[in-house]
């Protein structure tokens, strides 16, 4: 469970978040939406400890996380699978090696790594491109590689920042179906997006932010 308890983030006079209360239950799929600058990315950054709040508290499964430093931050981040809008794939290695990265970090054996990578690529429909250079794939395929990398280590939470930002409606819909599939097997999913037409079609909780505050949707 993810809990934001009166969390604020201020940059000088600018409030990126203002006393935000938000809870995402275990196994829930939640969309975080709002205009650019509403605070969606700030929520994800604070959750991944890429930034620290200036007020309030964030708890994950009941544990306060804002005081974590050094190696504890790295261990904490391994509990998350993260999908970025620009995929952030490494183009100097194959699709397989990109997906394998979280498993190498977690210390899996080469045999387990191969098995899990193939399973993850199979789930996103890219098993045939295992040895391909990511640069040779289309935008939608690259995003699916990013998703395979996010789920390969079977994280508790799946976080995505505008995962369909650069995709056409049909590809966006396919990508969302993938997130739903992972949610159905128990992964807690939190997606920041402003693709309202798409998420309105899906029957999941929608939380809307504006100027760093919650304006629509329940806090929990």
């Amino acid at each position, binding site marked *: 469970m993810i809990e934001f308890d009166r969390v604020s983030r201020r940059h000088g006079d600018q409030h990126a978040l203002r006393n935000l209360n938000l809870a995402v239950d275990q196994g829930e799929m939640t969309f975080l939406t709002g205009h650019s600058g509403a605070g969606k990315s700030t929520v994800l950054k604070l959750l*991944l400890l*890429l930034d620290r709040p200036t007020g309030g508290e964030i708890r994950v499964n009941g544990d306060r996380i804002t005081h974590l430093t*050094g*190696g504890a931050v*790295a*261990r*904490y*981040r*391994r*509990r*998350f699978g*993260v999908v970025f809008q620009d995929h*952030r794939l*490494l183009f*100097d290695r194959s699709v397989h090696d990109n997906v394998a*990265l*979280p498993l*190498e*970090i*977690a*210390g899996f*054996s*080469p045999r387990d790594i191969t098995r899990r990578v193939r399973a993850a690529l199979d789930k996103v429909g890219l098993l045939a491109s295992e040895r391909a250079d990511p640069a040779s794939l289309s935008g939608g395929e690259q995003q699916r590689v990013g998703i395979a*990398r*996010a789920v390969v280590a079977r994280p508790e939470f799946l976080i995505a920042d505008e995962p369909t930002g650069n995709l056409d409606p049909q590809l966006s819909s396919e990508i969302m179906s993938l997130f739903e599939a992972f949610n159905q097997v128990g992964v807690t999913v939190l997606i920041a997006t402003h693709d309202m037409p798409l998420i309105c079609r899906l029957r999941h909780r929608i939380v809307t932010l504006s100027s760093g505050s919650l304006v629509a949707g329940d806090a929990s």
Partner: protein
Amino acid sequence: MKISLLRERLLWRWWPVWLLQHQSAAASSWKKLQGRPLSTFMTWLLVALSLALPASLLLTVNNLNSVTSHFERPPQFSLLLTEQMDLDDATHLQQAITNWPEVARVKLIPRDEALSQFIALTGLNPLLESLPRNPLPHTLLVSLHNTAPEKDSTLLAKRLESSNGVDQVVLDTLWMIRLEEGLRAASRWVLAVGAMMLLTTVLALGNILRLTVVARGDEILVVRLIGGSSAFARRPFLYTGLWYGLGGGALGAVMLWLFCGWLAGPVNALFILYESQQRLQWPGIHYPLGLLAVAVVLGWIASWMACQRHFRQLDKQ
């Protein structure tokens, strides 16, 4: 007890993982260097030249040191006696000094013998015959025991100088002492030059590795975002530094051997001309091993510095 058991289990669990991660980082960084052979070779050359230069200077100083250590150097003084000392006085003084415990032997060279030796050596017969009298004094050659320390011989020189009838004391082995002091100064110079070259290597290598780290900034960022520790993100770059060091150190050792091979002919010919048994000392096994060790440590330090700087900037962002 429980804590130590837990630690032991964790250690056993993590040991193969740690090894695997190192193996993978070492292999991937080696592969990346292979992908750009020219720039890798240039970096090796940079490390090799920076290390081979001070190493060759050190080898030269060591060779000179071993040459001087082969010279026998029993301290010896020449005592030039005053005009008033006749041959009997000189003989008495010779006997008196012979009894001193530090003194091994005393040889008397009478002024007439000294003159005839001088004439024989220089051939200045007509000039010397034109002088009204023999200008040379009686001389005593005082040899000390080999074991006499430097300080004792200085004290002894003072005592000899204050003896009755002694005009001047000349330390015959002064040139050797000067040479030794010169070599000591040269050793320090080599150390200073060596230290400067090592610092230059770290800075140059640090800059090269910094460019590598910046070029692979995306990889570092992604690794950290998906839960890789700083150590994991740093590891491939540490291995890059290690490969640069190993390659550069090996190339430096080869250069040193080539340098010795090139010098050995004329240097050994010189020894033979001086009828010395001495030959040029080769680098042996210590120099290549030392070069490799120093180069690896430098590469490692340089890559560590490059990574830390980049990580600090990332953290600030």
